[in-house]
């Protein structure tokens, strides 16, 4: 019972903040309400007993990506705070598309008989994730670190001022 209440509160926080993100006319306000969205998602991870992923989510998403987005907003045109039109001419079509995709996804996902696991949950620890990353999934780990390196170099070179 308590878990259902927590789930409803966290989903409400996530979805309401996401609505503010996508519909606000002030871009700084929509970037700032990414923070409660990410916190709601963190709460959902904690309900799913994935604590390490929750900690990393707060650290990276709410701490770093939000700051990055706010930086770029302030250094480009959005930082002036002028009231410009934020939506283009595709608004009715995009509402339709989003609604159709939502109905399709929820319909398919709710009606598929997923194979439910019946064994009890193991204790998900950070050391378990570390072991998995370095034994079974080491290829994923190495490729991800390569992608990080390339993205780092690419972002620095692309955003550099021309001399």
């Amino acid at each position, binding site marked *: 019972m308590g*878990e259902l209440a927590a789930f409803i509160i966290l989903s409400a926080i996530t979805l309401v903040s996401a609505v503010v993100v996508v519909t606000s006319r002030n871009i700084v306000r929509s970037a700032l309400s990414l923070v409660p969205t990410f916190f709601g998602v963190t709460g959902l991870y904690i309900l*799913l007993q994935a604590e390490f992923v929750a900690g990393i989510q707060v650290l990276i998403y709410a701490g770093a990506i939000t700051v990055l987005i706010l930086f770029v907003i302030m250094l*480009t045109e959005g930082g002036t705070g002028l009231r410009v039109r934020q939506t*283009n001419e595709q608004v009715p079509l995009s509402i339709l598309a*989003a609604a159709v995709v939502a109905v399709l996804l929820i319909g398919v996902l709710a009606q598929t008989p997923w194979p439910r696991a019946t064994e009890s949950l193991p204790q998900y620890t950070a050391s378990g994730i570390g072991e998995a990353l370095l034994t079974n999934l080491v290829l994923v780990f190495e490729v991800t670190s390569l992608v990080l390196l390339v*993205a780092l170099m690419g972002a620095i070179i692309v955003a550099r001022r021309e001399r």
Partner: protein
Amino acid sequence: MQVGLTHYLVVSALLFCLGLYAMLSRRNAVAILMGIELMLNASNINLVAFNKYVAPAALNGQVFALVVITLAACEAGVGLALVMAAYRNLETVHVDEINVMKW
């Protein structure tokens, strides 16, 4: 009533569609990137929920979610660098004003 797999899937589907709406209908390039972040978060919720309810023995879902978080950070970094470079050269961040091949 227990919180089941379907609840998490519905929440993530709604979050995904909100991100899709942002991506399709906003003019500011940074707002489009924010929509993309929402979509990636929705897929992460799916991955972790499936890990707990369908295959709890292995940690693959959570590791996949961590990898998606890392790649989302990379993509946000590169995307925002592109937005800044575009702003410096084309003097606008609204994607519907970037419609000529030669500046």
